[in-house]
């Protein structure tokens, strides 16, 4: 099928009234949770995933994806107006965006963020359209050895790009892999680590894990301070750019989009890295680097384009290889599986309507988002005044009902409490939770391909290095590990991630 007819199929799928409606619902919810501090897209998608069980698979995926990239728009609004990034990738937007707002240029900052995001999202989707099919056809030739090496590469790369201690991230991944082994063994049916509980035979429900460590543990952290969010929001006016502003954001938006589209494909915190990378690039090429940190419009335009381009291209590894680049993609992987579709190179061939419909919905979603964000910005600003003591009981209740409704199994609800506690303790002890979820989702995949590859090769472990693609992937994994360990690069990495903590 050529590109034109594929895209036509995509538009035909994405433009049905039902899919259009849920695309709208998705990006609307995404904007909402992006604006609301204390709840992010990961927890939201985890809570809503069970609800989409009765939907058509493509409808469910369109909505869940919309929540993710919609949150990238919403996150920048809070970053600019109250210096409180709703999303980690918009932390860098807060630096100059909030300065602009304090200088009375909130409208220009918001418009820049929205336009940059829009451009990044649209172009990022083009990148997906152009490269995903090619990558999928390469991956069609992959055997178990290649998939094993690919998962290893994905896991290692996500450590290399994660912030904080590498050793801690590695431990979190392994712990996640181990939780992934709970349940019946795929080859022998032996129940593992179930303590006789029949509810655990099919494994720990990954919705419980995600809701626990990203939703509830986050609430516990927020309740530490119990701080009042008194936000003095001034009215936003002049929501448009002067001609000079417009001219000065063109180049940063283009550079940011290119950088973001490239880095988004990488596993780990690709989109966070993209926005920080873009910020430092803009600062370096600027004729007036001293304005950065004091309301430079380029410091908003570049990173915002970068993180939205990255948000779209991070779908590439999932759609073509079945490899999630970050926790949200791990949840999307789960959404595919709940609907009986195994993500990977076969999706494009077996489910062309779903594949192209989902990708085309990114364009539609981005158009809806810019319409939602620019004219309605005043409504989103009002949302910031929703008190947290109403918000967090709502999250707890939604999490319980959503998770329970998936299998009507109280055990899944208890698992939320367990993972919330574990996640909270580990975060308190300086361990980021994202690698745990990635490990948990990829654990069964890793074990299955390892065992299958070794059965086929009759126990000869050299199969991983004698098959050329597998060898290349493993070399890349070693390279990623070296990059993370090498002192000079390590230092730079620390600089990049240090700025991430909001002031």
């Amino acid at each position, binding site marked *: 099928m050529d590109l034109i007819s594929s895209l036509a199929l995509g538009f035909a799928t994405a433009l049905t009234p039902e899919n259009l409606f849920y695309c709208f619902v998705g990006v609307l919810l995404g904007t909402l949770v992006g604006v609301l501090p204390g709840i992010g897209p990961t927890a939201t998608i985890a809570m809503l995933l069970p*609800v989409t069980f*009765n939907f058509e698979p493509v409808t469910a995926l369109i909505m869940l994806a919309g929540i993710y990239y919609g949150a990238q728009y919403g996150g920048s609004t809070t970053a600019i107006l109250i210096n409180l990034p709703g999303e980690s990738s918009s932390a860098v937007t807060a630096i100059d965006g909030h300065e602009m707002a304090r200088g009375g240029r909130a409208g220009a900052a918001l418009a820049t963020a929205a336009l940059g995001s829009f451009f990044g999202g649209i172009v990022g989707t083009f990148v997906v359209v152009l490269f995903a099919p090619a990558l999928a056809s390469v991956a069609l030739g992959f055997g178990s050895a290649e998939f094993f090496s690919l998962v290893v590469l994905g896991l290692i790369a996500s450590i290399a790009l994660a912030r904080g*201690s590498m*050793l*801690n991230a590695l*431990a979190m991944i*392994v*712990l996640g*892999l*181990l939780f992934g*082994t709970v349940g019946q*063994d795929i*080859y*022998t049916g*032996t129940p*593992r*680590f179930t303590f006789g509980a029949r509810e655990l035979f099919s494994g720990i429900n990954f919705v419980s894990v995600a809701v626990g460590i990203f939703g*509830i543990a986050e*609430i*516990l952290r927020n*309740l*530490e301070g*119990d701080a*009042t969010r008194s936000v003095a929001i001034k009215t936003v006016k002049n929501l448009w750019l002067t001609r000079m502003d417009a001219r000065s954001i063109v180049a940063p938006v283009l550079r940011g989009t290119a950088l973001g589209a490239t880095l988004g494909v990488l596993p780990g915190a690709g989109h966070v890295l993209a926005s920080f990378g873009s910020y430092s690039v803009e600062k370096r090429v600027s004729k007036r680097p001293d304005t950065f940190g004091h309301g430079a419009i380029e410091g908003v335009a570049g990173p915002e384009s970068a993180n939205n381009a990255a948000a779209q291209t991070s779908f590439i590894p999932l759609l073509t290889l079945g490899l999630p680049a970050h926790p949200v993609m791990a949840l999307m992987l789960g959404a595919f599986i709940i609907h009986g579709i195994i993500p990977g190179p076969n999706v494009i061939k077996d489910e062309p309507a779903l594949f192209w419909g989902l990708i085309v919905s990114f364009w539609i979603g981005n158009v809806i988002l810019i319409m939602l964000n620019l004219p309605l910005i005043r409504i989103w600003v009002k949302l910031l005044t929703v008190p*947290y*003591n*109403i918000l*967090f*009981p*709502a999250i*707890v*209740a*939604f*999490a*319980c*009902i*959503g998770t*329970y*409704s998936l299998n*009507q199994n*109280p055990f899944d*609800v*208890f698992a*939320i*409490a367990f993972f*919330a*506690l574990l996640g*909270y303790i*580990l975060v*308190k*002890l*300086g*361990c980021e939770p994202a690698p745990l979820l990635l490990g948990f989702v990829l654990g069964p995949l890793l074990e299955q391909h*390892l*065992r299958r590859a*070794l*059965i086929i090769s*009759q*126990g000869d*472990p050299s199969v991983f290095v004698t098959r050329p693609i597998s060898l290349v992937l493993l070399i890349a994994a070693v390279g990623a590990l070296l990059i993370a360990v090498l002192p000079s690069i390590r230092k730079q990495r620390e600089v990049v991630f240090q700025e991430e903590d909001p002031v």
Partner: protein
Amino acid sequence: MPRSHKDILAGLVFVGFGMAFAVLALGYGIGTTVRMGPGYFPFFLGGALALIGALIVARGVLAGEEGAIGDIPWRAVGLILGAIVVFGLTVRGLGLIPSTFATALMSAFASRRAGVLSAVAVAIGLTVLCVLIFVIALSLRLPLVGNWIRF
């Protein structure tokens, strides 16, 4: 004198989980590399986790960065985790409406600034909202009132 309590505690958590998984995995049969038993993968991963945990403990003793663990909101932790467990225990017997109300009420009290009236109001509002969203809008088939209180 240990330098980082965070590292030492985190390392011990990992050592504990690693050892537990590895020891339990022994009971499932390790097998050989050709025919891996159900215990093979978790056994070696558990061992690896225990090792990494030990390294983190060592780093904490020798070279860790100092950092305070900070306050722990015991009341919030207890009430919120309790609220989730209560939901799991009662949703079958009591049904959606009473369970949601109990869970929302318990969580609402987790905030230090919550008064009785405002917590009850939040809980009632949320219960109505949840029924509207999950039962009416999304038509999930969950019993609104369970067997325990049906006559």
